[in-house]
């Protein structure tokens, strides 16, 4: 301690020696303990014996002697007795000195700090791990959601979209349950479907029928109808459940749908004929409005969402008495739609399950906003595809159409003498297109 005043040097020695509980060991080249002193008891070394092997008595020296590097330092070594010491070794000629300084308090202070830092790091690691697992679970969840979405999308094709929506949104329970509701029910059937298609291959029939149903369902959806079922070539649609705009609007929507279906069917017939299908599809339609039971029918294993009741049967019956290409509606429907269609009463009929006589009405045309009847002409057969909707004609095209029609009539009259058809189509055999 050169340059340090003698009295201070002495004090420093005292402070170091006592406060740091200095102890020392001296070991010779044969690793025999030759000297020991200081606060040996502080380190559990009070009973060391001089003249005996050092490493057997102070086993923390194992591997350190003889010294490979000098000085050699191990900070904060916790001994058997529980005290922590800084361990300093240095070579002095043939002997090695071992000096111990007590650092238990510093060790404890460091441990408190270190502990907090490690606890924090462990928490962060745990958090990162939990986040990783959460992300994994989210990925699994997304995958199973995708799977469910794919499945439910497949299922959706077997259900009316409104029914699908109300079930999958949780609005409707999938239980055997029905309600009484006022519905407008629509039935349609292709006239002589079997004989019309008997010369076609099954694959062609499937294609035709699928295209027909796809187009008609599209029209039904556009008008808010619930496509109930396909029965062979028949189609059942109702309005008023699960969504309703009120009885009047539901009935009007149904009639608008029916007339649009006829228009669309005329277009389809043209397309099919140009693709080689000789016989056009001629469709009868029946519409009735009344109270029905609507909901899930069937068993807990297999249910159908449908409507049943005498009023449904009546719609089917009206369809059966309709001429091909015509719509027949019940009086109950007619009173709801008389401002948008022109219709003529037919002889009354009785229907099983309906206590009253029913007056059917055949729809003869749609009415414009002023209540004027608009006729639509439609005829399709070998050698003729004719569809005329005056409302859809552009004013600039009228003269050209007149000329075409005149020429067409002249052409037919020119053939009149040779092989005129034995029977000219009567107006009631024409498709009014409505």
């Amino acid at each position, binding site marked *: 301690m050169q340059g340090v005043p003698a009295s201070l040097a002495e004090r420093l020695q005292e402070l170091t020696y006592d406060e740091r509980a200095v102890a020392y060991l001296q070991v010779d080249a044969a690793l025999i303990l030759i000297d020991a002193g200081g606060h040996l008891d502080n380190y559990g070394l009070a009973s060391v014996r001089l003249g005996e092997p050092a490493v057997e008595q102070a*086993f923390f020296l*194992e*591997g350190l002697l003889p010294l*490979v590097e000098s000085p050699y330092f191990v900070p904060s070594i916790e001994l*058997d007795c529980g005290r922590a010491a800084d361990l300093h070794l240095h070579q002095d000629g043939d002997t090695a000195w071992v000096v111990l300084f007590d650092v238990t308090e510093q060790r404890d202070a460091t441990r408190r700090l270190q502990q907090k830092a490690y606890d924090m790091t462990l928490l962060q*690691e745990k958090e990162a791990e939990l986040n990783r697992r959460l992300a994994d679970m989210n990925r699994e969840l997304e995958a199973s959601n995708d799977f469910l979405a794919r499945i439910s999308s497949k299922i959706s094709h077997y259900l009316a979209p409104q029914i699908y929506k109300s079930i999958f949104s949780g609005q409707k329970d999938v239980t055997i349950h029905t309600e009484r509701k006022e519905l407008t029910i629509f039935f349609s059937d292709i006239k002589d479907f079997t004989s019309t298609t008997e010369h076609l291959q099954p694959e062609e029939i499937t294609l035709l029928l699928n295209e027909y149903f796809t187009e008609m369902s599209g029209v039904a959806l556009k008008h808010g109808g619930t496509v109930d079922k396909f029965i062979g070539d028949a189609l059942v649609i109702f309005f008023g459940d699960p969504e309703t705009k009120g009885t009047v609007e539901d009935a009007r929507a149904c009639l608008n749908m029916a007339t649009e279906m006829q228009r669309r069917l005329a277009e389809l017939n043209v397309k099919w004929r140009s693709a080689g299908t000789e016989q056009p599809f001629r469709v009868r339609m029946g519409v009735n409005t009344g109270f029905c039971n609507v909901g899930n029918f069937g068993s807990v294993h297999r249910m159908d969402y449908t409507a049943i009741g005498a009023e449904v049967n009546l719609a089917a019956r009206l369809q059966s008495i309709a001429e091909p290409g015509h719509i027949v509606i019940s009086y109950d429907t007619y009173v709801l739609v008389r401002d948008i269609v022109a219709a003529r009463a037919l002889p009354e009929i009785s229907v099983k399950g309906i206590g009253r006589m029913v007056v059917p009405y055949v729809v003869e045309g749609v009415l414009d906003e002023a209540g004027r009847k608009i006729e639509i002409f439609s005829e399709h057969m070998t050698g003729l595809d004719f569809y005329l909707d005056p409302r859809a004609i552009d004013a600039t095209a009228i003269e050209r159409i007149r000329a075409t029609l005149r020429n067409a009539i002249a052409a037919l009259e020119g053939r009149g003498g040779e092989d005129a058809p034995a029977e000219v189509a009567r107006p009631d055999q024409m498709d009014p297109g409505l």
Partner: protein
Amino acid sequence: MTAMLQRKICMLGGFSVGKTSLVKRYVQSVFSEAYLTTVGVKIDKKTVDLSDRIVNLILWDLAGEDDINSFRMTNMRGAAGYVLVADGTRPSTLDVALSLRQRVEAEYGPLPFVLLLNKSDLKEQWAISDAELEGLRQNGLWVQPSSARTGEGVEDAFKDLAIRASS
């Protein structure tokens, strides 16, 4: 009379992998849930009877580091072997253990060691696959899952190391 040998063995690994708990399990046959970080070195002694010889293992339980660069390599001075410890629920600690091994070998050459994948009782959080374990073994590592809580793998690892470090 059987020969009496003494060997310095170091416990190496990341922090909180269970080095102190493994020593405590091995030396005192106890386990404590409380985590108390080690500062510096803690020294313990365990006598192993190998039938033909008795070996005093002087166990240097070295403080785990979160930064392996701050590891005091001089503490390995004079060690006859070492126990690498990783926490099987924290894969990053396996990397720490393996790089510690590289540093030890670079400084002191090849020494006998065992690699313990500790906390094997925490099955649900276990993050090291059997394939990885097999991969390590195929690289010539003496590696074993262990649990300071149940004692699984502890005795065997130290005994194996005692044999190799004293022959």
